């Protein structure tokens, strides 16, 4: 593979991984945030701590847990492996999984605070006027919380794009398969290929700058 092919490949892979993981984070994180914001139950604080753990744990610890759960001999992975003869390890799906886990807390945290900030009177009015729980959530709560959610989505995408530690552990660093931009930088720098390292670093920097620019102009347009 030529240098530019390699960069294009890593770029495409990184965007694909970050987009997919952000999509999952938005769905699952949004639901969890709604659930946590709207309900009081025993052990709620325990669940909250669990949801936020990936934010404070080093990515290598997350990678270790993922191997423990999804590895071929892992708690879940052994069943997947024996029934489907498939293991997520060393595939790009594992990179999505790693990005998903590390960015989930960002989505939950921002969305949960946004939902908690929604005026309770508006929610109650919605119920009184005949909307059910799902309709209220989709038509009243989420639209009112969309700024917080948007921030969560943007943070999750950025975190997913830069994910390195956990990805290296569960997806490996396989040229042409699981080498996302951060991993490609690591490979190039550790083998002393400074020319390609410079180029990949430059492209990731430009991409990130473009991303901040887009998210800034987007959040300016979204007014509540």
């Amino acid at each position, binding site marked *: 593979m030529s240098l530019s092919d390699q960069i294009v490949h890593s770029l495409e892979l990184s965007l694909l991984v970050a987009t997919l993981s952000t999509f999952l984070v938005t769905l699952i994180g949004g639901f969890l945030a709604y659930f946590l914001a709207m309900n009081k139950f025993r052990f709620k604080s325990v669940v909250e701590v669990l949801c936020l753990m990936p934010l404070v744990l080093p990515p290598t610890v997350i990678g270790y847990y993922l*191997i423990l759960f999804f*590895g*071929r*001999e892992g708690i879940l992975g052994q069943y997947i492996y024996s029934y489907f003869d498939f*293991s997520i*390890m*060393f595939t790009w799906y594992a990179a999505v999984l790693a990005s998903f886990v590390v960015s989930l807390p960002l989505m939950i945290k921002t969305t949960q605070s946004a939902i908690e900030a929604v005026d309770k009177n508006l929610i109650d009015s919605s119920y009184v006027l005949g909307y059910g729980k799902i309709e209220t959530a989709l038509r009243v709560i989420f639209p009112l919380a969309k700024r917080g959610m948007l921030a969560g989505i943007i943070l999750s995408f950025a975190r997913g794009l830069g994910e390195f530690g956990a990805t*290296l552990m569960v997806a*490996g*660093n*396989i*040229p042409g398969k699981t080498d996302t931009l951060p991993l490609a930088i690591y*490979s190039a*720098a*550790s*083998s*002393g*290929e400074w020319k390609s390292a410079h180029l990949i670093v430059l492209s990731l920097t430009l991409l990130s700058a473009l991303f901040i620019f887009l998210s800034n102009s987007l959040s300016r347009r979204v007014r509540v």
Partner: protein
Amino acid sequence: MKVALLCILTSALALLPLNEARAETELTISAASSLKGVLEEIKTLYATKSAVRINYNWAASGILKTQIEQGAPVDIFLSASRPEMESLENQKFLTKGGMKKLIKNQLVLVQNTNAKRRIRSLVDLKDKGLKKIAIGNPLTVPVGRYAKEVLDYYKLFDAVKERVVMGESARQIVDYTNLNEIDAAFLFATDILNNKKIRLVMTIPQGAHSDISYYGGVIKTTKGLKEAEAYLSFLEGNEAKLIFKKWGFLL
């Protein structure tokens, strides 16, 4: 709370001067990750003979070489192959003593003891049922470069290249094999010594790859030239040789 904070601060301050005083008799040794077990044992032995404090920095030889080229404050480099050391020598990173050949190793093909498909030889690697074959990244990991040479020598690389997983160090490949995450792997014979989870499939014939020798050298920028040279000659001595032998290295 305040008291606890104060305690932490004062103890942190108390540690500072200690570290500085020791700085003169400290050696940082960048060593190939396949040397981890044996060098830890040698460190314990060396501690009974010398007051010098040894700090190891483990990684693949290629990664360590790049770190040194970028000015990492390293006193001694122990490489699992010749090219890395030679490149540093050519770039004048080593002291006058130059590079010293220390020990040898062998390349082996291994599997986890519980591997789904058991193989018997190199040719079995063509079996598509083996989904993941681990070698070190040939660019930075010597055990991977030797493995690539072997695959090329037997004209197997094209048949396996879609299924190759590249590790960042010999140690990492050992871990993956321990966990049964991969179906077959190329490692050094010493990497799997006394490891009950890994099964030796075969030792690779010496002719199929370049000579697997470990080299040591003192880096020019060292602040403890005498100490570094003393440690390196200790590695060449008979006491260290016994330990190397015990860990499966060849002399």
